[in-house]
């Protein structure tokens, strides 16, 4: 009895298999999970309030309703970063171009 009750973590793992049982992939590509993680990490570090990002996301989705949810997320996140002065639009363009032309290693 005590042996079992002392291992709730083990049981939790079994139940954590639920998303797989429901047959959904949460992220369709690695960049989606990275950009999601970066957004949440920066919020948790106190760099912005969640509703501020959420507001941007709602606007982006309303403007261009596509099924590409994380593309909208990316645009909203970039807007927030630029508005906050954390990143500069030109440096983003430059860096993205470098990745696009394989001048930078994607896996670095």
């Amino acid at each position, binding site marked *: 009895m005590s042996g079992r009750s002392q291992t709730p973590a083990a049981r939790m793992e079994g139940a954590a298999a639920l998303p797989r049982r429901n047959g959904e992939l949460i992220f369709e590509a690695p*960049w989606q999970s990275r950009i999601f993680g970066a957004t*949440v990490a920066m919020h948790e570090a106190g760099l912005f309030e969640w509703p501020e990002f959420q507001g941007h996301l709602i606007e982006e989705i309303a403007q261009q309703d596509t*099924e590409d*949810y994380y593309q909208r997320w990316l645009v909203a996140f970039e807007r927030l970063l630029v508005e906050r002065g954390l990143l500069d639009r030109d440096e983003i363009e430059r860096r*993205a171009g470098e990745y696009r032309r394989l001048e930078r290693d994607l*896996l670095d």
Partner: protein
Amino acid sequence: MAEHHGHDHHPEPPSAVEARARALESLLIEKNLVTADAIDRIVEAYESDIGPLNGARVVARAWVDPEFKRRLLADGTAAIRELGISGLRGEHLVVVENRPGVHNVIVCTLCSCYPWAVLGLPPAWYKSAAYRSRMVINPREVLAEFGLHLDEGTRVEVWDSSAETRYMVLPERPPGTEHLSEEELAALVTRDAMVGVARVEVPART
């Protein structure tokens, strides 16, 4: 390590969106606004740990503890905190109860507001324009497409989530589960049941 990538396998150029995402991430890391470790930790947590498991624990507790259920329906945010679940981003959690004659389902018509703290990340269909618009207009038909057929007499209540308020459905405890422990009950509760597009089923005994 970097030398191994890139040169050996003649990579395809990334898509524009992928390059842009990578650009943001690398710039943020260079400027010490975020670390790769922090990103890893969050992705890992949302992919595996948080999941719908927290919600399943909440539902199972409500099924076995009427007092907890009362508190949960009165103030979801406070009640889930009793179970050590936090992670709400300032929004309020409202739990809506299925009962004979009333079926609840959640949607976010504006974007994809979802009770992350209890259900993890939303599935792709939850974010689709089709689900978001049609669930409000014709919930019975959409639910039937999910394989959930409600009888005529059952009223469907559709809860539209917002940045301030997130909903979660408290499904009905299936009959024949009186002998199950709270942990065994939690294992039966699916994400779909807590969104309201499925019932909780008891696996057939073999």
